[in-house]
């Protein structure tokens, strides 16, 4: 009887990829220590406030403005990067030109540079007396110490995310697809819209999400160039730091928790979009 039981069920405990139990355990422990517990602490701390207090903090004009500035400009910067990052990736993959490798290496610099350094460099460039700022000044365009300056800083730090996620996909793209479309009578523009973009769109969405997430959390470069005027160019992370300096910890965690929820919802939507766009390629 026992024998037949064993026989009837020989393969159920075996898997081609063993170690599911231990790796899942490690993953959960690790994620908990690094991500989940600190984030849970955020919500716990906020919960020391009453519901009315929380609503009051979140609906105060300064908080709303900071959140609007942070998310609005981050989305804008990610969108700009999605366009120009794809062009940079395309050029780096498809064409040969002198110093291509150097140009390729330059893309990673925003990854490596301390963000404060980037912020100071951009500020001195775009300040009214800086190289670029002095050229824009007569046109009535002010970059440094305005929300536009925040945009410039966030575009800077987000660029490599789009380039590095899209680049390998363009590299893998079969040139025969474009040839096939040409032979079927498609124009160059139709090929871009109907063949190339659908193939690279999922990677653009991923790059967009990464650049956006990075921009929302960015602090170092922005505070130098933004001017940090409350209600105008104050970002949410700065407001959190200000509240911390005032020892208003629960207020700080409340704003942080709000950022977390908004980010999560936005990233979730981008993720859905990305899955939808890749529905056939699975």
């Amino acid at each position, binding site marked *: 009887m026992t024998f037949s039981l064993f026989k009837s069920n020989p393969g159920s405990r075996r898997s081609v990829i063993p170690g599911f139990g231990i790796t899942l355990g490690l993953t959960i422990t690790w994620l908990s220590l690094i991500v989940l517990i600190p984030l849970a602490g955020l919500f716990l701390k906020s919960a020391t406030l009453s519901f009315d207090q929380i609503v009051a903090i979140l609906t105060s004009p300064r908080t709303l403005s900071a959140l609007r500035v942070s998310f609005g400009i981050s989305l804008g910067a990610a969108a700009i990067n999605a366009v120009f990052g794809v062009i940079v990736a395309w050029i780096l993959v498809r064409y040969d030109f002198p110093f291509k490798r150097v140009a390729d290496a330059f893309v990673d610099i925003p990854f490596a540079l301390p963000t404060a350094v980037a912020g100071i460099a951009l500020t001195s460039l775009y300040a009214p007396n800086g190289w670029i700022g002095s050229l824009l000044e007569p046109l009535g365009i002010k970059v440094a110490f305005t929300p536009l300056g925040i945009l410039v800083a966030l575009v800077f730090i987000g660029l490599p995310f789009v380039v590095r996620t899209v680049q390998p996909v363009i590299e893998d793209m079969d040139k*025969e*697809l474009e*040839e096939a479309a040409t032979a*079927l*009578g*498609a124009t160059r523009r139709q090929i871009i819209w*109907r063949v190339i973009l659908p193939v690279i769109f999922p990677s653009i969405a991923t790059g967009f999400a990464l650049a956006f997430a990075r921009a929302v959390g960015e602090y170092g470069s922005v505070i130098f160039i933004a001017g940090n005027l409350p209600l105008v160019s104050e970002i949410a992370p700065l407001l959190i730091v200000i509240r911390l300096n005032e020892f208003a910890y629960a207020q700080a965690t409340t704003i942080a928790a709000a950022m977390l929820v908004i980010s999560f919802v936005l990233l979730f939507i981008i993720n859905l979009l990305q899955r939808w766009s890749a529905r*056939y*390629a699975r």
Partner: protein
Amino acid sequence: MSIEVKNVSRVYGSFAALNNVSLSVKKGELIALLGPSGSGKTTLLRIIAGLDWPDAGDISLNGKSVIGEGASERGVGFVFQHYALFKHLSVFENVAFGLRVRPRATRPSNDEIKDRVMRLLKLVQIDWLADRSVTQLSGGQRQRVALARALAIEPEVLMLDEPFGALDAKVRLELRRWMRRLHEEMGMTTIFVTHDQEEAMELADRVVVMGQGKIEQIGTPQQIYGHPINPFVYEFLGQVNRLPCTVAGGVATIPGVAVEPSFRVRQFDGPGVAYIRPHDLEATPGKDDGVVRVLAPSGPTIKFEVELKNGNGSVEVQMNTGRFEALKIAPGMSVGLIAHTFKVFDPSQVDGEANGTTSSAAHA
């Protein structure tokens, strides 16, 4: 559509992919471009389709030069070796692609597109897969989608690059027969590239044998197989034994092999190399030209090696299994050899030494 290729050359760096190639194809013909890899056959196909440009020469379709036109203007159907299907589109949308990208004035309505695509999918026998993703299809089904997609634009010429190369043997045979029928039904000019001589022989009206950027011979399968004009074509079209010989007054003498008494070699005199197909050789017991070594029975015929006693290596012999059994030939037995028919080439035309069997280049 008739196709005229005039003195086309194409150089990649220092490698001449095509060297002054000329070819004319009549309307409705089914042409095979046959050759080993690197012979320029795919380059020629791509140049005719407008996916590549010649460094010199001219291409005319229906008597009109199209050298200034790209692939999108030439209106040829092209089927890629690895299908090049659009993975982000369903089977239906892949086939509809060529119709959807037309300028509004000539674009069929959605209903017409639907009708036409479904008709094509039925023609290639995969209408039940219309809504699938192409990533879910087998190789043979993908090939059919690629074909339907190329046919959707109603091309006057269909071009296929190694159309059956990536399929397993059974599917390949099936698709090959089916494509021949399709060609007969639709009657469009068709050119396909292959390195498989059997495929070229079975399908094509005419075969163009290419080697090292040049056309070696053009002819019907019978002409090509029966009368190869040079050693390259001879060797490419199947296994062949190469043996030194001398010809005097049309009578050939091959050391170690007897020659059918009535056989005459035309237009050749002096020392040469005899090219003998295995099935044109026969072994007879009771003589002592060589020793039977290895046997390889394959259905109705049997192939075996005979090691020549005169030191000229081994030759391959292919015989009818019935005849072989009647003669009671066995490994280790001494046999005589008779060549029924063969061709003699000048030794200067032949690369390598003239002894033993050379395997068909198609398997290289």
